[in-house]
């Protein structure tokens, strides 16, 4: 098969300028088109994983070319407008798969694992989440029915937001919405905030075991951004939604609601009383890190840093607070392609993410320093490359450590 689950990553200062030069052991081999054949292209092939990948990486010294939120819906963060050959070939593969009367979801998962081109991301996300059926003929009617159903909920329940037994829920949502993605102009538009309020309120009252929990508001964002992109060509972050047709906006709202619901169905015990899912996963993270990097684990113990103090947020918000939005969107490509991506694979991503900072962690020599580092990890410049490396490392960890609790313990 020429579908590579892993891509080989070149680390050089031109890390976005890449070209597919061939396949080796069924894995794609890429080459930097700028410095080739210069020796500065150090290839780190993930199919032959090194004990700790990030140790091999020197920090890319590139200009600060990616602003905080720019190009957030963009598959390619390179700033080069033209698609590389590799990107074009991947897009073709997606289009072929999506064109048939029945989409092979298994193939679509495999292909999506290493990232979905933004042109086909909306439909691919809807298919992978189970919102849309594999059968192409049925899709339109399913969409119509689900959208009607959602607006039926709105009619039925939304007026109750000021009733006594719902007003606390509504007020909490109302306070949190303006401070969801506060730096992105798109989310400061009144009509967008109203959409978020409706989605969250309806979800909360239909799920009384958890209700509205802070953090769930963040989880609507990637869906909303990706589905807005279905209707526009330009950058999304400054986009004025009032220029969309009303129907388009309603579709985006309903689709975001259903896909967020599907996601939350898989992680609901993260948000029920006392958040047992999160407590369990934070413990599992601690246990995992103690096995994969004893020195990091011991260092944190030495300075009495508890995992709950920083990793609670990693679990509650699925790393959305730790990464730029464009990286979350890329991360979710894989989470939706991976079985139990949000509920299980995320744990390995968190472990890979923590160990990614081992050098910085080991340099800190007191509790304060460690906490400030761990709550403000410098990912502002991150793009697809960094997320791909993180995901590949998480994948390796999953295989190496999943079912052998003590096998690797030194």
């Amino acid at each position, binding site marked *: 098969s020429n579908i590579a689950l892993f891509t080989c990553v070149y680390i050089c200062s031109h890390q976005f300028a890449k070209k597919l030069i061939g396949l080796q052991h069924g894995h794609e081999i890429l080459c930097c088109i700028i410095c080739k054949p210069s020796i500065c292209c150090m290839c780190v092939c993930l199919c032959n994983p090194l004990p700790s990948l990030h140790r091999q990486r020197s920090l890319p010294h590139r200009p600060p070319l990616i602003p905080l939120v720019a190009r957030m819906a963009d598959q390619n963060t390179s700033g080069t407008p033209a698609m590389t050959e590799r990107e074009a070939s991947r897009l073709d593969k997606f289009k072929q798969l999506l064109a048939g009367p029945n989409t092979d979801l298994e193939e679509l998962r495999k292909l999506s694992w290493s990232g979905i081109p933004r042109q086909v991301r909306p439909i691919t996300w809807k298919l992978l989440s189970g919102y849309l059926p594999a059968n192409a003929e049925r899709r339109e009617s399913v969409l119509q029915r689900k959208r009607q159903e959602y607006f039926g909920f709105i009619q039925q329940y939304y007026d109750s937001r000021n009733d006594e037994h719902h007003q606390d829920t509504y007020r909490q949502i109302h306070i*949190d919405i303006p*401070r969801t993605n*506060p730096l992105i102009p798109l989310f400061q538009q009144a009509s967008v905030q109203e959409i978020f309020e409706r989605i969250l309120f309806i979800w909360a009252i239909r799920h009384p075991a958890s209700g509205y929990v*802070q*953090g769930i508001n963040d989880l609507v964002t990637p869906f909303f951004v990706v589905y807005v992109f279905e209707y526009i060509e330009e950058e999304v972050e400054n986009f004025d939604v009032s220029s969309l047709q009303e129907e388009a906006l309603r579709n985006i709202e309903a689709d975001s609601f259903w896909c967020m619901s599907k996601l939350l169905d898989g992680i609901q015990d993260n948000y029920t*009383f*006392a958040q047992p899912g999160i407590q369990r996963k934070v413990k599992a993270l601690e246990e995992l890190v103690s096995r994969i990097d004893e020195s990091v684990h011991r260092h944190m113990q030495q300075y009495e840093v508890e995992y709950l103090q920083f990793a*609670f947020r990693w679990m509650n918000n699925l790393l959305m607070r730790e990464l730029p939005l464009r990286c979350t969107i890329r991360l979710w490509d894989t989470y939706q392609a991976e079985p139990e991506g949000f509920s299980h694979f995320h744990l390995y991503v968190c472990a890979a993410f923590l160990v990614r900072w081992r050098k910085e962690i080991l340099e800190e020599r007191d509790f*304060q320093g460690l906490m*400030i580092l761990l709550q403000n990890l410098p990912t502002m410049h991150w793009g697809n490359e960094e997320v791909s490396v993180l995901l590949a490392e998480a994948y390796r960890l999953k295989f190496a450590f999943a079912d052998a609790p003590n096998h690797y313990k030194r």
Partner: protein
Amino acid sequence: MAGGSVFECKEYLFKVLVIGELGVGKTSIIKRYVHQLFSQHYRATIGVDFALKVINWDSKTLVRLQLWDIAGQERFGNMTRVYYKEAVGAFVVFDVTRGSTFEAVSKWKHDLDSKVKLANGNPIPSVLLANKCDQKKESSNNTALMDNFCKETGFLGWFETSAKDNINVDEAARFLVENILANDKGLPYEESNGDRIKLDQETVAAESKSGCC
């Protein structure tokens, strides 16, 4: 103060909690205090946020203040117990423009007192902050009522604060640290280990600068 050598410099490390309902401005108060900044755009705190303020208290005293900004949505059951552990002081914050957040103050105070105590069993010193006073509608005079509320609920005192206009934030912090230091007098951090002097509530309350906005 002991008349020790001039080279003597004491360092203290204090863990201080900032708690209260969601959206009352806990994060804003901390950012104002630590970074001298205000923004309308802080995201909701998830779990706990950590900040550090280093204070040159006087020529021979350095205070490191760990500020623990606890998420306002009370969802966590026993989790606040983990966050409260070893705290030696607390701010409980409410929003003067939303009465319901004041009603919740007693609940937060009770949660605090039931989960963390000084080594001698006394409650940790806590100060009530009436935040967003720049948005207060009428200048009603509640001083006597608030003083009484503090006395009944066990707060050392209260301050009307505005993180936005930088009103009383430093003053409230100074007041709390004074009280923590009074508990800790003569016990530098390394030696104290929670073995703190009994807090004399009456004396402290008498010195309180409450309601000075």
